[in-house]
C-alpha cells in the first residue's frame, strides 16, 4: 500500500506539473533565449544552458579529483590516515547546500574575484572563457562549488569500486614490476570502469538539481555569455529566485515548465544510472 502511494505520488507529481505547463509556448520554449516577464516572452534556453554548463564545469573538476582521492584512500594511505580522511570527505557531503551558498557568496566569491579570476584573466585572458570583469559570482564560481559538493558522492562510490577489485589482480600487476600508478591506470580503472561511470552519473544527477548553493553564487542573469566569469542562471536558481515574484499565471506556468524540464532530465539520468548500476552488480556477481 505504502509503496503504491509513493509510486502514485511520482506520477501525480509529473501530471500536476505538466498540467500547469500545457498552456505554454510549445517547443519554441526550449530554444527561445529570451526571458522577459514584462513582455511575457519566456524561453528556457539560458536556464538550460546554465544548468548544463555549471554541471560540466563541476564534473570536469570533480571527476579527476574524486579519482585521485579514491586512489589515495584505497591504495596509498595507511588505514589510520585513510579512515579519518575518508570520514572528513564524507562530512563534506553532510553540509547543507545553503551553507555552501553562504560560504560561497560571502567568502569564496570575493576570494575568486581578488585572486583566482585575476590570475586566470592575466594568464589565460586570451581565451573567451576567461574574459570579463572579475566579479566573483558567476558561472565558474558556481561550477567550482558544485564540484566540491559532488566530490564526496563520486569519490565514495569510486572508493567502493576500487575496493571491489580483487587483491590478486592488483598483486599480479605489482608482481610484474608495475608501479602503483600503472596498476591503477591499467588494471584497476579498466576493471572498475563501469562503476566509475555509475559514480559519475550519480554526481551528474546531484549537480543538475542543486539549488541553493548555485542560486547564491551564479549571479542570476538570463544571458548566455561565452565568459565563465559572467553571471548566468540555472533552472533551479531561476525557480528559487523568481518564484515569489511570479504573480501572472503565464509567468508562473513558465517557471513550472522549467521545473518540469529539470524533472524530466534528472528522471532520465536517474533511471539510466539505476539500470547501469544494476547491470554492474549483476556483472560482478557473475565473476
Amino acid at each position: 500500500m505504502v509503496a503504491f502511494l509513493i509510486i502514485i505520488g511520482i506520477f501525480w507529481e509529473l501530471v500536476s506539473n505538466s498540467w500547469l505547463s500545457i498552456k505554454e509556448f510549445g517547443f519554441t520554449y526550449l530554444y527561445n533565449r529570451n526571458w522577459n516577464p514584462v513582455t511575457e516572452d519566456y524561453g528556457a534556453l539560458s536556464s538550460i544552458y546554465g544548468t548544463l554548463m555549471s554541471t560540466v564545469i563541476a564534473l570536469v573538476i570533480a571527476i579527476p579529483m574524486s579519482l585521485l582521492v579514491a586512489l589515495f584512500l584505497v591504495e596509498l594511505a595507511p588505514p589510520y590516515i585513510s579512515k579519518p580522511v575518508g570520514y572528513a570527505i564524507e562530512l563534506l557531503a553532510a553540509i547543507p547546500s545553503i551553507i555552501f551558498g553562504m560560504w560561497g557568496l560571502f567568502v569564496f566569491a570575493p576570494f575568486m574575484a581578488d585572486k583566482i579570476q585575476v590570475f586566470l584573466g592575466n594568464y589565460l585572458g586570451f581565451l573567451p572563457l576567461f574574459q570579463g570583469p572579475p566579479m566573483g559570482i558567476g558561472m565558474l564560481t558556481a561550477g567550482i562549488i558544485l564540484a566540491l559538493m559532488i566530490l564526496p558522492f563520486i569519490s565514495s562510490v569510486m572508493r567502493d569500486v576500487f575496493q571491489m577489485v580483487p587483491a590478486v589482480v592488483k598483486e599480479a600487476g605489482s608482481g610484474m614490476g608495475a608501479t602503483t600508478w600503472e596498476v591503477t591506470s591499467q588494471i584497476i580503472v579498466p576493471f572498475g570502469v563501469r562503476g566509475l561511470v555509475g559514480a559519475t552519473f550519480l554526481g551528474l544527477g546531484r549537480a543538475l538539481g542543486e539549488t541553493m548553493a548555485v542560486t547564491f553564487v551564479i549571479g542570476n542573469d538570463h544571458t548566455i555569455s561565452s565568459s565563465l566569469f559572467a553571471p548566468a542562471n540555472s533552472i533551479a536558481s531561476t525557480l528559487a529566485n523568481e518564484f515569489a515574484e511570479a504573480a501572472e499565471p503565464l509567468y508562473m506556468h513558465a517557471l513550472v515548465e522549467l521545473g518540469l524540464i529539470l524533472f524530466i532530465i534528472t528522471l532520465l539520468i536517474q533511471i539510466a544510472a539505476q539500470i547501469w548500476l544494476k547491470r554492474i552488480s549483476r556483472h560482478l556477481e557473475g565473476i
Partner: protein
Amino acid sequence: MELKPVRIRIARDLAMKVLATISSLIGIFFLGWILLEVAARGLSALSLSFFTHLPAPPGMEGGGLANAIIGTLLMTVLATVAGVPVGIMGGVYLAEYGQTTLLGKSVRFTLNVIMGVPSIIIGLFVYTLIVLPVGHFTGYAGAFSLAVIMIPIIARVTEDMLNMVPSSLRESALAVGAPHWKMIVQIVFRAAKSGLMTGILLAVARVSGETAPLLFTALNSPYWPTSIGQPTANLTVTIYNYAMSPYQDWQSIAWGASLLIMTSVLVMTVIARFVSRERVQ
C-alpha cells in the same frame, strides 16, 4: 607492450601519488575552511536574544530568530512523525515481503529514482499539490515536502538494515510458532534497532538543512508560528532572505542561523555514524 624508461615511470608514479595526496588535502582544506568560516562569523551573531526574540527590522538592535527556530523544529518534527512510520513500513515491505517480487523490485527502483530527484522539484510538486488548492503557503505543506524527501531515504536504509539481520534469527522465530508480523516486530526490529536509528537520524539531518522545498511551501514569516496552517518561519529560508538582503546586521544573523543549522546537521550525522559503528562491532 612498450615501456618507458624506469626513471620516467617512477617519476610519473611519484607525481600521481603527490597529486592524489594533494587532492585529498584540498577536500579537507575546503571542509575546514567552510567549518571555520561559518563558526567564526556565526558565533559573533549568536546571543541570548537570537534565541528568544522575533526578527527586528534592519538597523535595530536585538532581533532574534526565535520564531524561525520554533518553525523549523515544528516542521521537522511533523515531517519526522509522518515520514518515519511510512518509510519504515516501506522498508519492511521491501526486505520481508517484496524481496524478489516484481512489485518489490519496481518499488525499490522507484525509491532510488525519487532519492535522486532534486529537492526543489519536490517543493514544486507540493506547491502544485497543496499550496495552489489551499491558496496560501502553509507550514503543513513544508512539513509534507520534507516528509516526501525523508520517506525514500528511511525506506532504503531500513531495507538494508533488515537485510543484515541473519535469516537464522527469523527462521527460529517462525519455528517456535510466531506469526510473521510478530517475528518482524519482536525479533527483526530489535536486532536492527540501531540501524533503524541511523536511517532516521540521517534522514532528519538531511531535511533540516533543506531550503529549496520550503521556499515553495512554508515560505517564511516574521511572526510567531501561531498556527502551522499559515506561512511558517524557518531557519533556512530566513538565511536565504537575510543573506540576499543588503543589510549588514541581517547578514550577520544569517551567519548565526547557518552556524546553528550546520552544527545540528553535523552532530546528527556524526551520531548516526557512531550508532552504526557500534552495530558493526
